[in-house]
């Protein structure tokens, strides 16, 4: 056995041994919902994913991924999809990615990686299914691995064609594959998938779903056997597969999935999807979190997926794709600076390491402040990356949500919002929208905030906090949590639970046109 295979074997055995993260045991570890935290994964896997923006929220503050849309065809039909647009749940509804040839895609990757040294991961996710377009997908991988050998390759698929391509995937050293698995029960699948196209035939109903689930689970097993890390995405569809996803979580964990990402259904009539038109709703923030919590002991949960568009470029919710249109990249003069990229990434690692210690020190002082009282609160944070509270309230396109408890600050998700600060009309509406989006939070941390929104937030019972501008998120939120517990201890305030929050469904098309303008 060659050394690489031996190493992969060891990793796979480690996965097999690793049983959940034990965050329920009250052992004070930072919980595993922080998206594959250091304590939750075997060290070998942590090594592989710690700098991967799609698997670790913390890494997403420092590293960026990009997707290229080379795969327009699909081999299944989903009720949450309108094929005029990109996949509504893998990507954002109402968005059309710019389609590229493999040659254009490889050029774009080199151009982006030369401009943005944080860009370390290339994904192919659609707009169709990459494995329904195997020639285009693998040609892109071939060209990129030649031109930019340090870029990690990953792939998202519905799994139908996966068993046929596992060996090619392994050959390209693709180390991460994402499979979207929404059910393991064909009766439930029949309500999600009207048909699949396989082996030159269209299958419908329960037969289609039975075929799909068999192929998905077989593909998952084949990948884990070969040491390829496998993440599972599931779309939570209330009343259809919500409780069933607990069984899905168990089934995919048994077969070696190292992360399970449950995403909310995004559905509105204007998306033109079957679910949008039949009025099928998406889950609320609390319903989503309850389900993620129920699955937590299973495969590690991932909560930071932004369902970004298939040609997105950038850190966090940022999208710089407008800088890299086909016309612009074809005109760019690019040379690939591998050493410069490595040096940049080494500096990022130093910074990350030094901040981990400060966080741990802050956490150790929590006990003296009633940290053991069992109080947990959610807080929202405006950030544009680097793990800092560094975004102005009015400029935030999304808020990150952390759960504060005796165990520390645990990332539990993020909420997209409309820009409050668009200078002009609609400000009142967008502020109300932001409050609805973070209504389950006790406080919102920002670098800066104006007087008016401040007053409205306070009136809504959400404390605006601007005293930790440009400081580390985890350290600052724990410092604030200490003072919150102190105020409870002194009887100044009474801790009360907050309500639920809304996951935004509409308005994405408008947001998109703003991005480009």
């Amino acid at each position, binding site marked *: 056995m060659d050394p690489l295979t031996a190493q992969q074997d060891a990793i796979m055995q480690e996965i097999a041994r690793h049983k959940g993260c034990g965050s329920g045991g009250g052992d004070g570890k930072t919980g595993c919902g922080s998206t594959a935290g250091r304590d939750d994964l075997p060290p070998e896997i942590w090594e592989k994913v710690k700098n991967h923006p799609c698997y670790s929220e913390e890494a997403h503050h420092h590293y960026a991924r990009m997707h290229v849309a080379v795969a327009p065809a699909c081999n299944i039909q989903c009720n949450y999809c309108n*094929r005029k647009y990109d996949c509504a749940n893998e990507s954002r509804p109402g968005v059309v990615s710019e389609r590229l040839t493999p040659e254009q895609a490889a050029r774009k990757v080199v151009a982006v990686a030369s401009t943005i040294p944080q860009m370390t991961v290339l994904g192919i996710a659609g707009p169709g299914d990459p494995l329904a377009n195997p020639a285009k997908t693998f040609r892109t991988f071939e060209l990129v691995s030649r031109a930019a050998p340090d870029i990690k390759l990953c792939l998202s698929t519905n799994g139908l064609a996966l068993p046929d391509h596992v060996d090619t995937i392994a050959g390209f050293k693709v180390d991460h594959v994402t499979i979207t698995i929404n059910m393991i029960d064909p009766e439930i699948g029949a309500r999600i998938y009207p048909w699949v196209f396989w082996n*030159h*035939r269209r299958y419908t109903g329960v037969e289609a779903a039975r075929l799909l689930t068999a192929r998905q689970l077989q593909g998952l097993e084949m990948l884990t056997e070969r040491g390829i890390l496998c993440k599972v995405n599931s779309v939570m569809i209330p009343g259809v597969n919500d409780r069933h996803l607990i069984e899905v979580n168990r089934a995919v964990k048994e077969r070696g999935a190292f992360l399970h990402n449950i995403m909310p259904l995004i559905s509105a009539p204007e998306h033109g999807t079957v679910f949008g038109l039949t009025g099928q709703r998406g889950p609320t923030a609390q319903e989503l979190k309850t389900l993620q919590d129920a699955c937590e002991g299973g495969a590690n949960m991932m909560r930071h997926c932004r369902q970004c568009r298939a040609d997105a470029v950038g850190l966090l919710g940022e999208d710089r794709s407008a800088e890299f249109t086909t016309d612009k990249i074809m005109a760019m003069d690019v040379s690939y600076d591998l050493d410069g990229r490595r040096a940049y990434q080494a500096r990022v690692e130093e910074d990350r390491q030094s901040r981990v210690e400060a966080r741990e020190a802050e956490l150790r002082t929590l006990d003296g402040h009633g940290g053991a009282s069992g109080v947990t609160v959610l807080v929202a944070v405006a950030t544009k990356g680097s793990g800092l509270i560094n975004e102005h309230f009015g400029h935030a396109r999304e808020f990150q949500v952390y759960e504060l408890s005796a165990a520390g600050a645990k990332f539990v998700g993020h909420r997209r919002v409309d820009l409050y600060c668009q200078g002009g009309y609609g400000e009142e509406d967008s502020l109300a929208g932001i409050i609805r989006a973070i209504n389950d939070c006790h406080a919102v941390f920002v670098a800066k905030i104006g007087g008016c929104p401040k007053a409205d937030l306070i009136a809504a019972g959400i404390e605006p906090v601007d005293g930790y501008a440009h400081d580390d998120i985890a350290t600052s939120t724990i410092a604030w949590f200490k003072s919150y517990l102190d105020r409870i201890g002194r009887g100044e305030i009474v801790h009360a639970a907050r309500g639920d929050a809304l996951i935004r469904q509409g308005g994405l098309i408008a947001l998109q046109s703003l991005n480009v303008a």
Partner: protein
Amino acid sequence: MALKIVASQCTGCSACEAECPNQAISEKAGTFIINPAKCTECIGHYDNPQCAAVCPVDDTCVIDPAVPRYQAAS
């Protein structure tokens, strides 16, 4: 003797192009078209027209009434 693609409904996804056993389908200005001289309605290859089976938009790959139905050589 052929199918045709209703251009106003075609999303340009290219799924049909890859499935056609006769390379009868190609892209033209963002949508796809079928060359009626090459299309055999998949007769002799598959039980049903592949383009229609894979197309995500119902009734987009349809029999073209303007051309006579394909007759397999006997």
